[in-house]
């Protein structure tokens, strides 16, 4: 009798779920627009796709409900704490692996085959790891929700682009300058928003990001507008260009010229920049200013009553976070050789923020893992060409990126609402190390 009613209720719930799925699928799957030969948009109807999606959801939901019945509600799983040995060795092993990665790829796949891996996966992911770590200072440590972080990335990129093309300054001079400019802009954004928190701060930072991109688009005398800045000088090996010429990198070191040299150098460059970001963040966390950031995230009123200068604390967080975005931005410009405002849209800010949130705010390892998943995931989607044979040649899996990310976010919020790595390691200890798990602290209190 009970089994019957539970099956009935499971059916009812599954029907409801499939109805929701159908509703969602209607604009996404059932209706599509295609360009015909005369470049007109034609509405394409794919009702079968919608029905398939709704059917899949129905079956899936039903199975989940039926299977879940046998189980007793599980007790909350205690946070997994790394065995001490693993925790000690893992970071350095990871860094060594990263340093070996391009060389291993080069020997394994050759200069042609390894390019994709070092460039699309290696460099691309590391840029976002660095941006994630930079934003982590602002959002994760200081708790200031910044939706316009890409603005500082843009400041860094345009700093290098303009300084190198207009004044002929080299990358190694522009890199620190780009960081300084971005930090100055960070402080400039910091001043007016000092009194804001939470939602209000988010809106103002969002607007700031849009303003920067609007200025870059419309102030054509300065930034050349939408057309962007072209032929930005490429990266050199401390003065030696990566060209086939006499005084190029390959000739100087007696190597055969290959385009991959530049990519490998870029890989190491961004790796070192990202590691600097990481080390600086770790150091700062142990200094009074870093602890003040975290205390500020926890409770601003308590901070004030303890004599912490909240104004300076917020400004340093904004400025430092922005500085690392500036470094990453000038790296972006030297890598692409071309910048235009399209690279600095709100979507970029959202992606970086998603990396920080998915990773677990404040967790360095979590942010790195989330960057691998988010950026690497996009690249993997491009590789899934076999899906074309199933869904037809016009099917492009990378267009479903956002759908999948949305799904991943929803699942994360259900299973790991505090991000991939939610435990926060205290920055000081009296005796032995102990990780304190996020699950012990109530939601909304931490």
């Amino acid at each position: 009798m009970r089994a019957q009613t539970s099956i009935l209720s499971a059916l009812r719930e599954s029907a409801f779920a499939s109805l929701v799925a159908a509703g969602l699928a209607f604009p996404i799957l059932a209706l599509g627009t295609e360009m015909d030969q005369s470049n007109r948009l034609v509405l394409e109807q794919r009702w079968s796709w919608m029905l398939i999606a709704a059917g899949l959801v129905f079956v899936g939901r039903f199975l989940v409900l039926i299977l879940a019945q046998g189980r007793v509600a599980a007790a909350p799983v205690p946070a997994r704490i790394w065995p001490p040995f693993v925790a000690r060795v893992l970071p350095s092993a990871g860094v060594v692996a990263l340093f070996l990665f391009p060389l291993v790829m080069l020997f394994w796949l050759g200069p042609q085959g390894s390019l994709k891996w070092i460039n699309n996966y290696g460099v691309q992911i590391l840029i976002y790891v660095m941006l994630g770590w930079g934003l982590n200072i602002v959002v994760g440590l200081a708790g200031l929700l910044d939706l316009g972080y890409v603005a500082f990335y843009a400041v860094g990129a345009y700093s290098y682009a303009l300084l190198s093309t207009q004044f002929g300054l080299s990358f190694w001079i522009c890199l620190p300058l780009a960081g300084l400019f971005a930090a100055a802009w960070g402080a400039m954004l910091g001043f007016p928003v000092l009194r804001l928190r939470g939602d209000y701060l988010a809106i103002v930072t969002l607007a700031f990001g849009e303003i920067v991109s609007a200025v870059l688009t419309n102030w054509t005398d300065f930034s050349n507008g939408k057309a962007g800045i072209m032929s930005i000088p490429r990266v050199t090996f401390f003065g030696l260009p990566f060209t086939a010429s006499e005084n190029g990198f390959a000739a100087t070191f007696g190597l055969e010229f290959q385009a991959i040299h530049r990519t490998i150098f870029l890989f190491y460059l961004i790796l070192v920049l990202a590691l600097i970001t990481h080390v600086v963040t770790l150091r700062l966390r142990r200094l009074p200013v870093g602890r003040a950031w975290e205390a500020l995230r926890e409770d601003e009123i308590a901070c004030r009553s303890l004599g912490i200068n909240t104004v300076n604390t917020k400004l340093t967080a904004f400025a430092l976070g922005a500085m690392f975005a500036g470094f990453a931005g000038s790296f972006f410009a030297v890598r692409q050789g071309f910048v235009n405002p399209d690279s600095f849209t709100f979507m970029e800010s959202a992606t970086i923020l998603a990396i920080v949130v998915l990773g677990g705010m404040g967790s360095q390892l979590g942010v790195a893992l989330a960057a691998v998943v988010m950026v690497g995931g996009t690249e993997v989607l491009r590789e899934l060409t076999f899906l074309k044979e199933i869904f037809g040649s016009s099917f492009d899996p990378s267009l479903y990126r956002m759908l999948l990310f949305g799904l991943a976010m929803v699942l994360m919020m259900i299973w790991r609402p505090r991000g991939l790595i939610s435990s926060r390691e205290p920055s000081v200890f009296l005796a032995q190390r102990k990780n304190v798990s996020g699950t012990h602290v109530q939601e909304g209190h931490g």
Partner: protein
Amino acid sequence: MTTPLLSIQKLEAAYGQIIALKGIDLDVMPGEIVTVIGANGAGKSTTMMSVFGRPPARSGKIFFDGQEITNKPAHEIARLGLAQSPEGRRIFPRMSVLENLQMGAAVDDFRHFQADLERMFDIFPRLKERIDQRGGTLSGGEQQMLAIARALMSRPRLLMLDEPSLGLAPLVVKQIFEVIRELNRNDGLTVFLVEQNAFHALKLAHRGYVMVNGAITLSGTGRELLDNPQVRAAYLEGAH
């Protein structure tokens, strides 16, 4: 006559249109425990918070050890030797007990950190047991101990406590008040205490003020106020 350590003169403050303090006069002499009692919304906490500039004083003056501190930035006031344990304790929940204590020592630039840490463990042995635990996982009483210890880490000359008994079991309240009494007796710490628990507060304090609707209506020694029939009727009946 010695100068008061904290002197509030004709202080007026408001939250927007709502006037919270209507001209408060209050003195705390060095070595004293002074308490302000009153009902919910009487302006007790506002008085204390106004010393730190939130809400700002609209008129009137606040002096700390003879120096005017009216509407100075909070961190500068704290550096003068004035520590506050705010209402609701306001522990940093995701930070460990040790980190919480470190935050308190920031004002003192960590000059006496180790010695002060040992001293806090002597006063509150429970905190030593919990040293690596997150602040948010402590019990209410432990959090209150941590809030007081955190404030003491800055080596203040005046400790301001906002409702330390809030939400605590009677036994724990007793413990905490005992600690405050000993700090005052042994170390000569001056304490300014805001409390709803009038009976305990008046028994502890040398002097007390009674606040009603943003104004001070009565003042006297703790003993006098405890025996005052009006105070008994309004705040003490049934409170034992």
